[in-house]
């Protein structure tokens, strides 16, 4: 950080468009890290104005007031008050007020103004508000508030220009004015008084409240309805899982064909030897079998991002609050848990918005049970191998099984949360108090950017950690070479083969053969690696004939149905992700919880796989 930078902090209500404004002003010049010692995300960005002045923007967590109820809100207060030793106090505060939501925004502005820092009030989303009949006299508002008032449309190109020009027009010493420091926590009377004052200022500035959109009112009548709301939510989730299978089929076939032809080409154009084996059996069979799931992951994320953008997610949290409450979870746990369907890591980090530490811990404990996207390749492979692709009652059977697996994860999470509640007692004060923001059409640019990020991350993983693990796995599956006169496939004599056979002793009761046992080990680093590992193991142990057929066909012919189902059940619970455990360690700041999570998940996975295997065997025999 340059000492001459102007330090600006963005403060505002949740969903006020603060982050959109931050992105608009700083573009890609952002740095995301954590505040030291706490797990609150710190977003900082820079921009340089036309007059060569450098600004450093800090995007503070959204809050309704300076009396915090969560870790995030406490950070906003502490940074604004200059209480953090690690964070120089901002020189000015840009208070982002949502024009469609002005009374609460102005109340916050009045509260923030009392801390004595120079402040600029930014009226955001004025375009949307005007369409609904919103009016205000900005000059008058500015006079009444005693701060500059600037209009922005953060989501539009050039929408922040007015603010940038204003900041630039300020004399250099304006921003450097040493603030007066007399602040006390607002009392209930203070809050009441700021409400009254905000109402007075609005009345004096000719404020007309934007009309509530008919569409939103009508949509909420259905979507928040005790019966139809839940029905729509259930149908929506079901549709998503159907789409993940049916829409992805074509692009997956194309990728599959592409990978197969590359492997063919490598085999045909290289002399037989270790290098050819490494390329074809290790890298192409391993990494290719993971990349093939990119379309499904993109589709799943497209739905999650669109739902997030639309404002529907908090409503889903509202609808499911009773269910969550009955097992001792806060309704607020819904959004972290839903994020965990994409990946448990952002999900666990999102638990910071849960006020009660106990509820937060319970949410962290069950988050790994939500079916993350890394499990999708495993499920997809096994379903393709063992579940017939046919319609039952108009639904794709494979999609139905996938939905059932996701449901099993959720049911497991509810069960574990319930046990934890019995075990430790739930907290007495579950806060829901969740804002249901206005619906918005998801913006295409936003969606495309989010999807690109996810796809890039997935491919980077496939090219990085997964590639590296595949090379290691290829090596230990190839060496030592079989002794002269050996009869079985070479891999059975390798390190991996022996290791797999040892592990298979423990895993045999749940129906796993030694090939699966090997694949589970690199799968600890990331679940989807197990699929690539199976690809490599079978590529190395089979003859040419096996190699050219799809992995799902190979395992369908080599495993019994009971084994396939048992492995599915295993993956519903198994804690096969070191990164998640590392995040749990960081978020809870102790080894205790990651260890408990590992133990209970392995226990559940073993039990579930055992039960599934035995029941399936019994059925197929009887």
């Amino acid at each position, binding site marked *: 950080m340059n000492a001459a930078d102007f330090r600006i902090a963005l403060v505002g209500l949740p969903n006020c468009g603060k982050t959109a404004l931050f992105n608009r002003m700083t573009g890609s010049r952002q740095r995301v890290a954590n505040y030291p010692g706490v797990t609150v995300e710190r977003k900082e960005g820079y921009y340089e104005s036309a007059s060569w002045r450098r600004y450093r923007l800090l995007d503070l967590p959204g809050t*309704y*007031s300076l*009396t915090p*109820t969560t870790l995030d809100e406490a950070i906003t207060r502490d940074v604004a008050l200059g209480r953090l030793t690690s964070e120089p106090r901002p020189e000015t505060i840009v208070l982002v007020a949502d024009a*469609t*939501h*002005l*009374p*609460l925004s102005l*109340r916050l502005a009045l509260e923030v103004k009392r801390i004595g820092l120079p402040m600029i009030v930014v009226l955001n989303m004025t375009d949307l508000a005007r369409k609904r009949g919103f009016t205000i006299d900005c000059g008058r508002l500015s006079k009444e508030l005693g701060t500059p008032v600037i209009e922005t449309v953060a989501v539009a190109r050039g929408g922040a220009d007015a603010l940038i020009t204003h900041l630039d027009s300020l004399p250099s010493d304006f921003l450097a004015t040493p603030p007066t420091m007399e602040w006390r926590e607002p009392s*209930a009377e203070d*809050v*009441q008084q700021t*409400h*009254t004052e905000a109402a007075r200022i609005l009345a004096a500035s000719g404020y007309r*409240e934007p009309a509530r959109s008919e569409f939103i009112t009508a949509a*909420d*009548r259905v979507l*928040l*309805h*005790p*019966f139809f*709301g839940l029905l729509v939510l259930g149908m929506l989730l079901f549709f998503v899982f159907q789409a993940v299978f049916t829409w992805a089929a074509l692009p997956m076939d194309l990728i599959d064909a592409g990978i197969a032809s590359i492997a063919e080409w490598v085999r045909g154009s290289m002399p037989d030897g270790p290098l050819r084996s490494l390329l074809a059996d290790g890298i192409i069979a391993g990494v290719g079998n993971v990349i093939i799931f990119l379309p499904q992951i993109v589709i799943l994320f497209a739905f999650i991002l669109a739902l997030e953008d639309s404002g529907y997610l*908090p*409503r889903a*949290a*509202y*609808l499911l*609050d*009773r269910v969550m*409450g009955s097992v001792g979870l806060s*309704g607020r746990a819904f959004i972290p848990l839903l994020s965990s369907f994409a990946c448990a890591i952002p999900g666990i980090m999102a638990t910071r918005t849960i*006020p009660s530490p106990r509820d937060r811990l319970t949410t962290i404990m069950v988050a790994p049970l939500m079916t993350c996207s890394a499990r999708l390749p495993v499920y997809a492979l096994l379903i393709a191998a063992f579940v017939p692709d046919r319609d039952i009652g108009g639904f794709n059977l494979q999609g139905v099984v996938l939905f059932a697996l996701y449901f099993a994860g959720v049911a497991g999470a509810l069960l574990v949360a319930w046990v934890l509640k019995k075990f430790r007692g739930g907290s007495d*004060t*579950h*806060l*829901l*108090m*969740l*804002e*249901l*923001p206005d619906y918005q059409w998801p913006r295409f640019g936003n969606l495309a950017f989010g999807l690109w990020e996810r796809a890039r991350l997935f491919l980077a993983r496939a090219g990085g950690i997964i590639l590296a693990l595949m090379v290691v796995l290829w090596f230990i599956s190839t060496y030592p070479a079989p002794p002269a006169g050996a009869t079985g496939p070479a891999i059975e004599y390798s390190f991996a083969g022996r290791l797999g056979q040892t592990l298979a002793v423990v895993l045999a009761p749940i129906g796993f053969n030694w090939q699966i046992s090997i694949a589970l080990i690199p799968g600890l680093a990331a679940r989807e690696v197990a699929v690539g590992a199976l690809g490599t193991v079978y590529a190395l142990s089979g003859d040419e004939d096996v190699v050219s057929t799809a992995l799902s066909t190979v395992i369908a012919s080599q495993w019994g149905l009971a084994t396939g189902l048992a492995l599915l059940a295993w993956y519903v619970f198994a804690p096969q992700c070191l990164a998640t455990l590392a995040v749990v360690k960081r978020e809870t700041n102790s080894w205790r919880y990651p260890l408990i999570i590992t133990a209970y998940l392995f226990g559940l996975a073993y039990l579930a796989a055992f039960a599934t295997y035995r029941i399936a065997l019994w059925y197929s025999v009887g």
Partner: protein
Amino acid sequence: MVGRRVPETHSANENDPQLHKRGGLSDTLPMTDLTQPPTTLSGLRAGQSAVVDRIDADDVLARRLLEIGFFPGASVELVASLWPARDPVAVRVSGATFALRRKEAERVKIR
């Protein structure tokens, strides 16, 4: 804004067979007495409006309710509530909609 309430004419008419039916129900079931206007936010039905009277006590919960707009004199409208126990509820206040658990909604006294 004038709040719509439960029609009070019902409680005046002792011979209303509808009322007896309802009264009988509320004897056996833990239901809100429909003959009395509700005294807290959680007593409102979907579509009904009222005015906030006060929030008792001053703890974290009360403070946050106050901050998000449930101050004395604010008008509130119940947008929706879930079966079976009207928990949670969705409430419109100060130009925003909030989901509240029943325990939270009960803290807001209305008139």
